[in-house]
C-alpha cells in the first residue's frame, strides 16, 4: 500500500487537478490508504493533541488575551474598560518608553563584543594548552550561576568607594567613577557584566562548532599554502556560521528582555532613567503603578519589534548563506 502511494505521488503532480466525478485509480488508492490508516491517524492525533492543546492554552490564549488587554484601561485587579487604541497613542508621547527602548537597544552593543571574545576564547581553549578543562569550566561558571546573585556581587564591585573595580583602577592611578550612579557609566557597566555572564555559553557553542570543522579541509588549505589566519577566515569562520547566527538571534531576543540585573543593580531605573530597560519599565507600570493595560500595550509593541528583527535576521541569513560542496 505504501508503495502504491509513493509511486502515485509524482504522477499526481504532473496532472492538472480538476473536479471530476470519476475517481482516478490514484485517488481510489489514496482513499483506500486513508481508510486503512484511520486508526493510526487517530492515534497520531491523540499524540499530537497535548502539545497542540498546550500551545493553544498557554501561548495563543495569553497572546490573544494580552492583545485585548492592551486595548483596555485595566489595573490588573478589577474589570477592564475598553479604550481602543488609547494606550498605543499614549506610548507615542511617553518619553520614558522611548528612553527605555533606546537603553534596551544600547545594551545590545554587548552582543557583538561578547561573540568576538567568545570566539577568541574558543580558539584559545581549542588548543592543547595545560589546564584547559579547568579553564573551560571556570569560564562556564557564570552561566550556571543565579543572575540575581551575580547582579548583587557586581553591584558591590561597581560601588564607587569600596568597589573592586575602582580598587583595581586605583592601582593604575585611575580614580574610577561611581559606576551605577552616573548616567555615562551605568550602561557600559551593565554591558560589561552581561558580556562576562554570557561569555561561557557562547564559548562552549563555538568550541563545539570549531571541533566539528572537518580537519581534511584545514589540511587541504594548509597544503595549498594558506596561513593560519587565512584558514580561520575562509574555513573555520564560514563553517561555524550557523552557530554565530543562532547566537545572534537568541542573544537579541534575550537582550530585548533584559530585566533582572537592571532591577537589582539600579532599582530606580538608574540616574535620570539611564539604565531602565523596556521590560523594567513594563514591570514598573504594571505592578507599581497598576497600569496593566498600558504595560500590556508596551509588551505587545516589544513583541512585534522582536518578531520583526528576527524575521529580518532570517532573511539576511538566507541571502548570505553559503555551503561548501
Amino acid at each position: 500500500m505504501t508503495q502504491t502511494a509513493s509511486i502515485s505521488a509524482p504522477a499526481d503532480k504532473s496532472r492538472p487537478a480538476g473536479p471530476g466525478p470519476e475517481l482516478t485509480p490514484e485517488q481510489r488508492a489514496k482513499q483506500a490508504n486513508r481508510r486503512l490508516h484511520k486508526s493510526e491517524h487517530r492515534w497520531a492525533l491523540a499524540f499530537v493533541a497535548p502539545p497542540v492543546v498546550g500551545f493553544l492554552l498557554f501561548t495563543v490564549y495569553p497572546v490573544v488575551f494580552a492583545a485585548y488587554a492592551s486595548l483596555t484601561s485595566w489595573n490588573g485587579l478589577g474589570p477592564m474598560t475598553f479604550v481602543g487604541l488609547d494606550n498605543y497613542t499614549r506610548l507615542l508621547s511617553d518619553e520614558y518608553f522611548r528612553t527605555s527602548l533606546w537603553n534596551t537597544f544600547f545594551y545590545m552593543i554587548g552582543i557583538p563584543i561578547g561573540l568576538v571574545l567568545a570566539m577568541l576564547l574558543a580558539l584559545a581553549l581549542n588548543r592543547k594548552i595545560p589546564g584547559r578543562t579547568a579553564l573551560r569550566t571556570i569560564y562556564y561558571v557564570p552561566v550556571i550561576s543565579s543572575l540575581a546573585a551575580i547582579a548583587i556581587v557586581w553591584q558591590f564591585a561597581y560601588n564607587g568607594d569600596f568597589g573592586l573595580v575602582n580598587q583595581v583602577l586605583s592601582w593604575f592611578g585611575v580614580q574610577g567613577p561611581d559606576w551605577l550612579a552616573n548616567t555615562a557609566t551605568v550602561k557600559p557597566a551593565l554591558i560589561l557584566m552581561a558580556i562576562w555572564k554570557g561569555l561561557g555559553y557562547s564559548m562552549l557553542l563555538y568550541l563545539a562548532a570549531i571541533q566539528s570543522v572537518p580537519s581534511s579541509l584545514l589540511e587541504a588549505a594548509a597544503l595549498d599554502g594558506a596561513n593560519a589566519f587565512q584558514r580561520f577566515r575562509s574555513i573555520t569562520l564560514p563553517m561555524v556560521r550557523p552557530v554565530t547566527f543562532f547566537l545572534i538571534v537568541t542573544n537579541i531576543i534575550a537582550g530585548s528582555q533584559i530585566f533582572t540585573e537592571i532591577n537589582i543593580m539600579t532599582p530606580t531605573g538608574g540616574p535620570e532613567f539611564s539604565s531602565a530597560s523596556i521590560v523594567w519599565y513594563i514591570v514598573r507600570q504594571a505592578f507599581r503603578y497598576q497600569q496593566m493595560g498600558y504595560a500590556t500595550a508596551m509588551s505587545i509593541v516589544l513583541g512585534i519589534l522582536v518578531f520583526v528583527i528576527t524575521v529580518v535576521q532570517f532573511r539576511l541569513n538566507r541571502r548570505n548563506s553559503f555551503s561548501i560542496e
Partner: protein
Amino acid sequence: MKKTRLLSLSVCAALAGTLALTACSSGGGATDDGEKKLTFMFRGGPDEKTAYETAIKKFTADTGVKVDMIVTDADQYATKLQAAVAGNKVPDVFYIEQANLQSYVSSGVLADITEEVEASGVDLDNMWEYGVDSYRFDGELQGTPDGALYGLPKDVGPFAFGYNKTMLEANGIPLPDPDKPYTLDEFVQVTKQLTKDTDGDGALDQWGTGLNVQWNLQSLVWSNGGDWVNEDRTEVTVDTPEFAEALQWFADLTNVHGVTPSASEAATLDTYQRWMAGEIAFFPVGPWDVSVYNELDFDYDLIPWPAGETGESATWIGSLGIGVSNTTKLPEDAVKLVTYLSADAAAQQTLVDAGIQVPNLVDMAEEWAAAPDAEPANRKEFLDIVQDYGRAMPAAYTYGAQWYDELWTNIQPVIDGKQTAADYLAETQPKMQSLLDESNATAEQAAAGR
C-alpha cells in the same frame, strides 16, 4: 476505535482536571477534617518573619485557627500579591500599602471591616490615629477619620533624625536639644565643624551629614512651609518658592557647604554604611533601624529634624496595613487575625521585643518610650512624630504614585549642582501635574464603577 475514544477522553479529562484544580484552590477555608485555616501573605526580612511566626503560633494556640504564612521579599511583594489576585487566589489576610489601598478597594479585593473591628472590641482610641486613619477611605478621600475601615495598621514608621553622640562629644560640640530643632543655619554651622580630615591624610573622613533626597527632602520642604500637593490633592505645588528653597538647601549641603560625602555617593547606600562606621554625625533613624543601630560601636540618640522657615520640625510616617480579602471564606477569623496582629497586647509585645517596630498601642508605646533602659534614650521622639509632627508620605493617599516618582527620576543634576532647584521644579511640575490628573481621573472612574 474504542481505544481511541478512551484515549482522547482521558486526555480531555486530564486537561479539564488541571484547569479545575487551578480554579478551585483559592484562599483558605475549612479543611477536610473541619479544621479552620487562613492564608496570610506578608513581606519582610528574616527578623520580621521569625517575629511573626512566634506571634502567629500563639494565635493558633488561642483560637484553633491555623495560618498558612506566605512571606516574600519587600520588592517582590506587590508583584506576587497582584498575581494572586489575578489568579483568583487572594490570600485571606494580607499586607496592603497605603498608596494601593484605593485601587484594591475599588477593585473589590479588600473587604470593609468597619463593623467587624467594632464588634471585636478593639479600642481604636488606644491606637495611633494616623495608623488607623491611613486605612480609612470614604469613597473619595483616603486618610480621613470618618471613612470605612479597610484594614488596620501593621505598624507605623516614624522617620526620625539621629546623631552620633560619641562623635559630637569627642569634637566638643554641645549636644542638640531634644525639644528644640536646629534652624537650617545652625545645622550648617554644626555640620561644618564636624566635617574634617581626622587622620591627616588630606582626604575628608568625617562628615556632618549625608542625606538621600528621596527620603529626606519631605522633612525640609514641609518645615519650610511647602508641600507636594494642595489640600484636596488636585494640584501639584512643587514649583512654589518654599519648595524650591528647601530643595536648593538640600543640594547646597553638598555643593556649597561641603558637609556631606560627594554627590554621587548619596545615590548609593554609602552614607548609610559611613554612618554605621561612625563617619557621619547626623543621620535619619527609623524604628526598623533600631535593632541594628543599637549594636554599633558608638552611642546615638534622636532629635527633631532641622526646621526651615516655619520653625517647626516635620517628617513622614510610613505605614503598612493589614487587610482582609473580600472573598475569604472565614471573614470572622480573618478579621480576628488582623486585630490580633495589629492590636493584641501580647502580639505587639512579641513584635516590639524583636526590635522591628514601635508599639501600635498608645499606652504600651508610652511605657516603652519611658523605659529607663531605652536605647536610644530619647526614643520618645518616635512617638512625638506619630502624635504630633509626622505626616503621611505625599503619595500615600493618591491613586498610585507615578506622579510622585516623577520628581525623583531626573533630579540628579540638581543634587550635583548642575541645575538650580527652581529651574528643575518649574520644568517638572507640569509633568507631575498631568500624571496626578491622570491618577485622579482613574480614581474617579474607579469610584464610579463601584
